[in-house]
């Protein structure tokens, strides 16, 4: 993950749009695939997971940005992890108390938000170098982008797999649900279709001679590309390693 030069204090709106569209974590960056596949059996679960991640992302970005001058460079990753894990635990306890059904449905994927590539990736590549307000909105934008993506994937799987959407029947009564879409293989197929669409767009852009803005980054392609912001978190400085960084 290359260090990008960020302008001083991006506007909140620009950050929101960036997270939702330009750098959508799921559709463009292809980050955080484990939860994306695991919890999108229905639109509701997707939305719940997305919002839980959004909450963690906003708060961790805010705190990391506030502490960015205090956290020493060499121990920044453990520091990020502790901050993120704290908020994940808080979200988990809140969900246990107020949304027990959703908590049951999402199960251990809530604590696993800690290892979601997106959160550590944003901490490392944005919040650690930018002021609190734009970091907060960066987290909000990324989180909303993730939520929208998860809800959409969940909706597709729910409609095809059960004929319902948000628990309301939407398909005509003659529709026979394709059960496989809410089971594990369906997740792989939906993601395959998604990456194929992304590939098709990239090929078309290349053919028409446009510079493509999509980096084939993310966990789906190769662990090593995630670098430190990936699923594979190293507790220490990787600058001495062979990685891209």
């Amino acid at each position: 993950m290359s260090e990008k030069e960020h302008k001083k204090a991006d506007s909140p709106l620009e950050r929101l749009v960036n997270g939702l569209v330009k750098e959508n974590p799921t559709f463009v960056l292809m980050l955080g695939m484990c939860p994306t596949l695991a919890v999108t059996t229905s639109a509701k679960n997707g939305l719940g997971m997305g919002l839980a991640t959004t909450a963690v992302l906003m708060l961790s970005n805010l705190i990391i940005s506030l502490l960015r001058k205090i956290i020493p460079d060499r121990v920044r990753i453990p520091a990020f992890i502790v901050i993120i894990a704290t908020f994940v635990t808080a979200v988990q306890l809140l969900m246990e108390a107020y949304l027990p059904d959703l908590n049951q449905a999402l199960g251990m994927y809530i604590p696993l938000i800690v290892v979601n590539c997106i959160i550590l990736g944003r901490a490392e590549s944005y919040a650690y170098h930018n002021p609190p307000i734009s970091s907060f909105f960066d987290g909000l934008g990324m989180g909303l982008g993730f939520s929208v993506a998860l809800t959409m994937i969940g909706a597709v799987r729910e409609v095809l797999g059960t004929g319902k959407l948000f628990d309301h029947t939407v398909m005509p009564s003659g529709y026979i649900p394709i059960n496989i879409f809410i089971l594990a293989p369906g997740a792989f197929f939906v993601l395959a279709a998604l990456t194929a669409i992304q590939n098709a767009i990239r090929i078309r852009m290349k053919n028409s001679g446009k510079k493509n803005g999509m980096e084939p980054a993310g966990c789906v392609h190769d662990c090593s590309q995630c670098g430190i912001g990936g699923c594979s978190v190293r507790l220490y400085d990787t600058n001495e390693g062979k990685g891209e960084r």
Partner: protein
Amino acid sequence: MEGVKELLMILIGSSLVSNVVLSQFLGLCPFLGVSKKIKTAAGMGGAVIFVITLASGVAGIIYRFLLVTLGLEYLQTIVFILVIAALVQFVEMFLKKYMHSLYEALGVYLPLITTNCAVLGVALTNVQKKYGIWKGITNGFATAVGFLIAIVILAGIREKTEYNDVPEAFQGMPIVLISAGLMSIAFFGFSGLHW
């Protein structure tokens, strides 16, 4: 006898019936990233077995004797992730210094799995299912064996499909995901093994 049967059930259940990648989507990143060749896939699988077995043991001991005794169960996520990350780094350093041949074999893969979701996932599952330390270690080992099986099979398929004529848009990751989906369907066959 009863205990042995229970361990055996965990062994089969975690490795085949609810396979860690194909039905729980944990550890997807190395599963898709390091499955180009059977040899590297097997190396990765070996490293995962090593790390997950060790990590589930250590996490189990810490949970049982530290967190439960102090009544701090709610700190499990934070403690587990730090313990696992530190553990893997320590293992890497230890292997590099004292067991160089093993380090040569697994070393490259260790940083890739430091805290991949599967390691943390197993530690959390062990707590969730109230497995004791031994059952936890068995579960960890079985989960990792399931990972090894899945990644080696996928690597085998990928070596074959590499020379196939795949539609342009489906080249690369999409076709791998479809293979994984088909494997996932095949693994449903194991759900009959519940007894």
